[in-house]
């Protein structure tokens, strides 16, 4: 009986497990997770769960996979020669097939020693720690105004907690969404009472055994009890350093979805040559990608591959607005504002040369399916920019 190991018991890992069962795998499925939890939903951690709403985080379907759950002990190594996942002092796990879905970890502040009151946000325990810390917080500094930092700032303002949001770039979300959308997000933050410091970064933290003051690069000292570090994430690949797998800003998988024979990778940790980008390697940290690539990884391992050319999509809740996207967005593309209303609704297009590759909106969600279809259709037609032909 063949044994399949899935390292990473999150959304991508769960979807891989479900797809293995759907395709008829009736051997053992072993789920190896660093956290002590079965798969759960992360998006609410910076939104409604952070503000204390009663939210069911459980991802349905875990029981039906009839998997063996090895939780609370991270994988520490991979020996492909003998096909074993190492787990520190715990027993290694032998496998016939493997899916790597270890996700990402939050980046920390360089050169700043951790101390009580400094919190990164990635997992359930982080949000629980932040919720506890908020009970006695008179001001919170959030370092980084990306997706997580911006959502945390918005959630804290909903609780009426004073927030200073420190962003090294010229506007929030500039790299993923560009200057125009970043400026709109900056306006949103200010309109909701956020003390927004752009072009600044956190240089040091001080206090008597806990966070009391946050020092910025320009010498500004901000009295605060909590510092949330939201400076993005990095792929969880340290355990694969000696595995022989190709690591290039993530676990690299080929056109066939595989990183090595019988070994696939999926979700936040995986990068792959995207057909819509002429085969350029990309890594996508969005929810839907973990669902789709998790399933795809299972099919890849079992040799059922049909190419993987998803149109990425994200959402971000900010105050009474929700930003949503389809396709490829960011500073690398030409941005044109299709519409922008005084009430904060907008629609923005992203182009690569004259080809529309993405769109972001607040308040015009019904425009997105049309954009998505247009972007997806480019996979089925010869790509003028790159000369590739989709299948």
């Amino acid at each position, binding site marked *: 009986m063949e044994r399949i190991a899935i390292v990473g018991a999150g959304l991508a890992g769960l*979807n891989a497990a479900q797809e293995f069962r759907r395709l008829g795998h009736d051997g053992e499925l072993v789920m190896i997770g660093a956290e002590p939890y079965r798969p759960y*939903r992360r*998006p609410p951690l910076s939104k409604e769960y952070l503000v204390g709403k009663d939210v069911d985080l459980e*991802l*349905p379907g875990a029981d039906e996979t009839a998997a063996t759950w090895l939780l609370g002990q991270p994988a520490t190594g991979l020996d492909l020669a003998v096909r074993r996942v190492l787990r520190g002092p715990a027993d290694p796990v032998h496998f016939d097939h493997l899916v790597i879905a270890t996700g990402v970890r939050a980046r920390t502040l360089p050169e700043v020693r951790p101390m009580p009151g400094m919190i990164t946000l990635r997992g359930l325990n982080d949000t629980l720690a932040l919720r506890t810390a908020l009970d006695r917080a008179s001001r919170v500094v959030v370092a980084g105004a990306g997706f997580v930092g911006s959502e945390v700032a918005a959630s804290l303002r909903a609780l009426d907690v004073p927030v200073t949001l420190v962003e090294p770039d010229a506007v929030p979300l500039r790299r993923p969404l560009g200057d125009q959308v970043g400026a709109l997000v900056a306006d949103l933050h200010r309109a909701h009472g956020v003390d927004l410091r752009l072009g600044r970064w956190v240089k040091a933290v001080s206090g008597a055994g806990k966070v009391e003051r946050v020092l910025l690069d320009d010498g500004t000292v901000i009295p605060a009890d909590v510092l949330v570090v939201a400076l993005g994430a990095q792929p969880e690949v340290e355990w694969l350093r000696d595995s022989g797998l190709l690591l290039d800003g993530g676990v690299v998988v080929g056109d066939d979805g595989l990183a090595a024979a019988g070994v696939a990778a999926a979700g936040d940790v995986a990068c792959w040559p995207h057909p819509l980008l002429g085969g350029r390697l990309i890594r996508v940290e969005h*929810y*839907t990608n973990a*669902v*789709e690539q998790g*399933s795809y990884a299972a099919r890849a391992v079992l040799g059922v591959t049909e190419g993987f050319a998803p*149109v990425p*999509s994200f*959402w971000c809740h900010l105050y009474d607005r*929700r930003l*949503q996207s*389809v396709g490829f967005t960011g500073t690398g593309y030409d941005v044109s504002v299709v519409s922008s209303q005084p009430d904060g609704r907008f629609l923005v297009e992203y182009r690569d040369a004259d080809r529309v590759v993405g769109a972001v909106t607040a*308040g*015009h*969600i*019904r425009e*997105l*399916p049309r954009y*998505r*279809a247009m972007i997806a259709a480019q996979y089925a037609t010869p790509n003028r920019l790159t000369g590739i032909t989709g299948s």
Partner: protein
Amino acid sequence: MRVRVDMTTCETHAQCVFAAPDVFSLDDNDELVYDANPDDSLRAAVEQAVKTCPVHAIFIEGT
């Protein structure tokens, strides 16, 4: 087949519209509307919509 969306849970992330545009769509107010009795030939697309819904608001009822 029969489809039900829990509209108190739905947050209009529109992932179902992407997965199964013949079943789910958005009206002029960005509210979700859907065909509760789609043809069986659309089952794979609806199953994909169920999987990608981030708030798990979509249910296929019966068999």
